[in-house]
C-alpha cells in the first residue's frame, strides 16, 4: 500500500488518515468490551451493540451544548450500560456452560428486545446529538479543515485505551481476568468464582460500550441501526485481533479505522468489500489474527 501512496499526491489523504485514527479509536473502545467478554468469559454477547446504543441515546437525550451535560451524560450512560451488561450476565448464568450457539441465541434475543425498547422510548428517528459548543466547529490541520470534536476525541480515546491497558496489566482485577483467560480452572481453585468474574467482565464491557456510546455519539450516532453497525465492527475487530491481548485489539481497531477511511479514499470502488477482504486475508494468512496469541496451545 505504501508504495501506491508514495506514487500519488499525499495531500488529499491527510484528513482520511487522521479520521481513520479517530474512527479506529472509537471502534477500539466499543470493541474492547466484546473482546474481554469473548476472550475471558467465553461469552459471545451479541447484545454488545445495544450497550453502545444505550450510551448513544443517553448522549442524545442529555447533551445540551455545555460541558456539565457531557459529564452527566457520560455518568448516566456508563451506569446504564454497566447495569445492562450485568443484567445480561445474570440472564446468561443458566446457559453459561453451554455452547456459544445457545449464548448467541439468548443475547441475540436480548439485542432484538433491547433495540425495540430503545426505539419505543426514543422514537424511530435518529435523534440529534449536540456536542459542547466549544467543540462544535472545525479546526485547521495541515492546511485542511477537520472537525474539532473528533480531534479532541482522539486524545480522550487514546487516554481511555492507555487506562484500559494499565488496568488489565497492573491491577489485581486485571490479573485475575488475564489468569482466567489462561486457566479458568486454576483461578476457580484459588477461590475466585468464575461466575463473579463473568459478571464483572460483562459489567466492565458494558461500561466501556456505554462510554464509547456517549463519547462516540457525534461520530457513530444513535439510531435504530446503530446497534447492528457497532456489533458488526466489533466482531470484525474480534476476528482481526485474534482475542490475544489489548494491544492486538488496539492494532486491529486502528486497522479497521484506516480501512474504513483511508482505504475508501484510495479505492472507493472496492469500498463495500474492503473490510471483509481484509478480514479474509488476515484469516487466511494467520488464523489467530494480527497479533499472535500469547498462549501456546
Amino acid at each position: 500500500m505504501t508504495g501506491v501512496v508514495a506514487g500519488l499526491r499525499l495531500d488529499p489523504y491527510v484528513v482520511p488518515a487522521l479520521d481513520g485514527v479517530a474512527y479506529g479509536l472509537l471502534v477500539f473502545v466499543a470493541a474492547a468490551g466484546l473482546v474481554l467478554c469473548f476472550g475471558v468469559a467465553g461469552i459471545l454477547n451479541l447484545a454488545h451493540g445495544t450497550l453502545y446504543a444505550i450510551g448513544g441515546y443517553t448522549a442524545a437525550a442529555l447533551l445540551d451544548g455545555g460541558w456539565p451535560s457531557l459529564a452527566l451524560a457520560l455518568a448516566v450512560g456508563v451506569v446504564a450500560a454497566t447495569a445492562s451488561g450485568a443484567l445480561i450476565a445474570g440472564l446468561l448464568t443458566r446457559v453459561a456452560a453451554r455452547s456459544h450457539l445457545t449464548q448467541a441465541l439468548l443475547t441475540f434475543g436480548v439485542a432484538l428486545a433491547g433495540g425495540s425498547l430503545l426505539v419505543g422510548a426514543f422514537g424511530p428517528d435518529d435523534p440529534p446529538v449536540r456536542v459542547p459548543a466549544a467543540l462544535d466547529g472545525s479546526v485547521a490541520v495541515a492546511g485542511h479543515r477537520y472537525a474539532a470534536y473528533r480531534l479532541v476525541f482522539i486524545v480522550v480515546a487514546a487516554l481511555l485505551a492507555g487506562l484500559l491497558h494499565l488496568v488489565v496489566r497492573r491491577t489485581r482485577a486485571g490479573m485475575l481476568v488475564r489468569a482466567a483467560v489462561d486457566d479458568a480452572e486454576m483461578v476457580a481453585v484459588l477461590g475466585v468464582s468464575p461466575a463473579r468474574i463473568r459478571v464483572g467482565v460483562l459489567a466492565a464491557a458494558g461500561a466501556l460500550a456505554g462510554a464509547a456510546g456517549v463519547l462516540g455519539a457525534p461520530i457513530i450516532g444513535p439510531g435504530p441501526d446503530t446497534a447492528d453497525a457497532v456489533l458488526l465492527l466489533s466482531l470484525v475487530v474480534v476476528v482481526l485481533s485474534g482475542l490475544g491481548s489489548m494491544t492486538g485489539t488496539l492494532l486491529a481497531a486502528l486497522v479497521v479505522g484506516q480501512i474504513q477511511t483511508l482505504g475508501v479514499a484510495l479505492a472507493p470502488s472496492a469500498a463495500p468489500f474492503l473490510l471483509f477482504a481484509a478480514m479474509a486475508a488476515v484469516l487466511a494468512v494467520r488464523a489467530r489474527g494480527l497479533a499472535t496469541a500469547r498462549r501456546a496451545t
Partner: protein
Amino acid sequence: MSLTMPRRRRARTAALLALVLLAAPACADDQGAAGPGGPVKIGLLASLSGTYQAVGKDIRDGFQLYLSTHDGRLGGRRVELVVADEGNGAATAVPAATKLLKQDRVVALTGVVGGGSVAAVYPLLNEAKVPFVGSNGRPELKDVSRVWHTSYLSDEPGEAIAQHVRDDVKGSVYAIGPDYQGGWDELRGFTEAFAKVGGRLANPDGRTTFTPFPTTTNFTPYFARIKASGADAVYTFYAGSAAVDFVKQYAQSEVKDLPLYAAGFLTEGGVLNAQGEAARDIYSVLNYSPDLDNAENRAFVAAWKAEHDGSPTTYAMASYDAAAVLDRAIAAAGDDPTPERVNAAIGQLGQMASPRGTWQFSPTTHAPVQKWYLRQVRQDGRALSNTVVGDLATVGG
C-alpha cells in the same frame, strides 16, 4: 439434566401454543365486500415498524387526516380503513397485503413505503383485480393499468433541478449518492438532465460516486475526494440516517463552503431535526413544502398541526392526496363501487387540487405530472425549515 430438557421443551411448546392462540382471534373477523350504499373498505399498507417507520406513520396519518377532515367518508360513503404493517420490505409486505386483499376484500389498496414491496405486492393486485393508489415507492412496472401513484418517480427530482444548478453554479458539480436502486435512479435523473443542458460533472471519471449502502456512516474520505476534484458545488441524494450523517459531517468537513444541492429527502421530515444547524442553507428540490401558499395547503397544514407536532412532510401530503383521489373516484364510480369501477374512475379524474398545487395523473406512467419547488433550509420562527425559494420545472409522465 435429563429432567430439565423435557421440561424446557414443554415450556417452549406452551409458549408456541400461546402465540398461536394470540394470533387466532386476529384472523377471525372476515366480512364480505361492501354492498350498494354501504361502507367501503380501503386497505392501507405502510411500514409501521422497522427502518422506515417514520415514513410509514406519516403515510398512515396523512390518510387518516383526510378522513377525519371529511367526516370519515370517501365519495359519500363511510370508510372502513384497514391498516396493515408493511415492515421492512417484501417479506413482511406480501402476507400483510394478502390479508388485506383476500380476507378483508378491500376495494382499493393505498400506501406502501418501499419500491421493493410494491414490486412484490404487484402480482397479488393483478390476481385480485384491485386498484392500487400508492403514496410513496415506485419501481419500474410493465403494466400499470391498476397501479397509480400520488408521489413521484425516483429520477424526477434530479431532472427538475438540473437546469437551475447549471444556471447557478459557475463550474463543475460533484455527484454522489447511495449505492442502491433508489440512489441510482435519483442520481441518474440529475446527471442525464444536467449533461443535456451542458453541465459538467467534477467526478474524476465523469460518473457519479456511489457509496456502499447502508454500511457507509463515515463520509470523510468522500469529502476528501470532492475537495481533490476541485468541484464548485455538490449534488446528492440521501435519506434517513445516512442523510443525517452526510449533512452533519459535510458541515464540519473541508468542503463545507461548497453549495450543497439535493433531492428534497436529504432534509425532509425528522432528519432535519437531527441535522440541526448543520443543514442550514442546503438547497433541495421537492414536489411539496409546508409553506406553499394555496388554500388547500393552508387547510392541510392547519389540520395537521392541530393533531401533530411539527409540519407535514411530502409523505403525509402524498397519502392525503391518495385519499383525495379515492374520494373523487369512489364518488364517480356510482352506486356499486367495485374495484374495477373505482379503477376506471381514477383514470377519468383529470386535474387534482392539492396542497402541492394542481396536478394530474400522466396517462402513460400513472404518476403525477406536477410542479417541483426549489427549497432552502432557513430559520422559520424557532426551528429550521425547508422554505420555498422558487419554482422549478413541471416534470412527470
